[in-house]
């Protein structure tokens, strides 16, 4: 099953309450996904600092902080439950190999604007754990998971990020992910789980090197076999795509201040002025996108 949610703010009015809006959306999608939850939140990227979202797993924060400080010229390390946001002016090509040397931690995403948090447990516990209500930002994407094809682990939780400021959440299942994973690995993509969605995220990141997001998703219609409603985030906005059979639901509400998407309308019922929003279902096989 799984639940997916997203908000893109068109005006600055709700930037401070973005976390609170997304948090309620995730909690109301608990019935669709009680096993794990996660979210990616984008804040403006005016400075040159990179943010690396890391799940510490069993490593203690102090130990990580001490060890990373020996290796990287840092500006900051912020702890949020069992996750850490490492901020540095150093570029990914330098930092990523260093992080790979830590065998116990997992990098969940990186970029100039994205921050990702995901963990096993019910969505209401996960949003509380990371204090999602206190987050601000320009757009955000979230997921509640009902695990079907791979284990309930942090690695199996969404969103998946396989490129700078990119992320993907997925409701559905892919049937050709093993073949596609092999192909992408040959081209140099790296995967950290057996999950089908991670392959779709890797496919999108790989394709984005040559195409824009809209072209990438349109190509995905023929390359990705299975059922899906995808929300894919980039530094400037997000895009939505449903498979051509439209097996998995999605509903969009658009007002002058925001665009919200979720698996079911009830996730959006609390949003400001939603009863006057333009509410519609994204048509199957058509890419919808907001932001630059």
């Amino acid at each position: 099953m799984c639940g997916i949610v997203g908000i893109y703010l068109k005006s600055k009015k709700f930037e401070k309450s973005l976390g609170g809006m997304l948090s309620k959306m995730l909690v109301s999608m608990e019935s669709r996904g009680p096993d794990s939850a996660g979210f990616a939140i984008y804040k403006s990227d005016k400075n040159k600092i990179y943010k690396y979202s890391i799940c510490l797993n069993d490593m203690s924060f102090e130990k990580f902080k001490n060890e990373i400080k020996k290796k990287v010229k840092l500006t900051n390390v912020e702890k949020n439950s069992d996750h850490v946001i490492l901020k540095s002016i150093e570029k990914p090509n330098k930092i990523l190999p260093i992080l790979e040397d830590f065998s116990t931690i997992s990098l969940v995403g990186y970029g100039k604007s994205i921050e990702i948090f995901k963990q096993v447990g019910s969505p209401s516990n996960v949003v509380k754990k990371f204090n999602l209500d206190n987050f601000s930002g320009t757009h955000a994407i979230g997921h509640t998971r009902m695990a079907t094809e791979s284990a309930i682990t942090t690695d199996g939780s969404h969103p998946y990020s396989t490129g700078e400021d990119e992320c993907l959440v997925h409701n559905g299942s892919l049937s050709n992910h093993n073949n596609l994973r092999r192909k992408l690995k040959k081209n140099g993509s790296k995967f950290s789980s057996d999950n089908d969605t991670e392959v779709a995220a890797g496919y999108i990141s790989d394709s984005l090197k040559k195409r824009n997001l809209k072209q990438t998703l349109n190509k995905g219609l023929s390359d990705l076999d299975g059922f899906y409603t995808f929300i894919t985030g980039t530094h400037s906005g997000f895009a939505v795509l449903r498979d051509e059979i439209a097996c998995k639901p999605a509903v969009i509400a658009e007002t002058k201040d925001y665009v919200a998407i979720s698996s079911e309308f009830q996730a959006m019922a609390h949003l400001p002025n939603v009863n006057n929003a333009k509410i519609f279902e994204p048509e199957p096989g058509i890419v919808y996108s907001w932001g630059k």
Partner: protein
Amino acid sequence: MILDLKKLKLRSVNEKLQNIDHKKNKRDFVISNPEGNHAVCAGLTENIDVTIKGHVGYYCAGMNQNANIIVDGNVGTGVAENMMSGKVHVKGNASQSAGATAHGGTLIIDGDASSRCGISMKGIDIIVKGSVGHMSAFMAQSGNLVVCGDAGEALGDSLYETDIYVKGKVKSLGADCEEKKMSKKHKTKLKELLKKAGSNIKPEQFKRYGSARKLYNFNIDNVSNY
């Protein structure tokens, strides 16, 4: 009587509407703050009027008998699924599988319905003032589907005896579905259906689609395909 879903539990609201006290003679109900809840007004059996003020979730008015239900908003998947009788009027858009498997009654959708509208319908009359999505009236057995807008891909696939009327464009017809002649009998029926939905559109502007009846019986020439 106003039933506020912000204050009352969905189950208690549905129970109340399913067990009408005949002595009290209350037959008008308004449900406020539905907030996308599922199964609102499912399983009603009495001739009562219910207006839902706002958007609802899945299976709204499912299995309805006799009740007259108005939704002042959008509905999720499977509105009026398996309806037996009565009337359901959606003032907004409907999600997929609207009126699925319904045996009777009338479903009116003022906006668009999405894919699989009227799937396996068995006697219901569905009037959609907007357009319908792909695979609408799939395996539809009897009743009428009226579409004032356009129809998506594979309309009426594997159709039995439902009459489909479409005013706009049909993206493609499904297996065994074909355009049929619009006789006087059909025009009269269509006029009556449009009138029920408060529409003045002339029946002449519609085309009728029905079953070619080629899938009804096993064809011995196809034996090698099995």
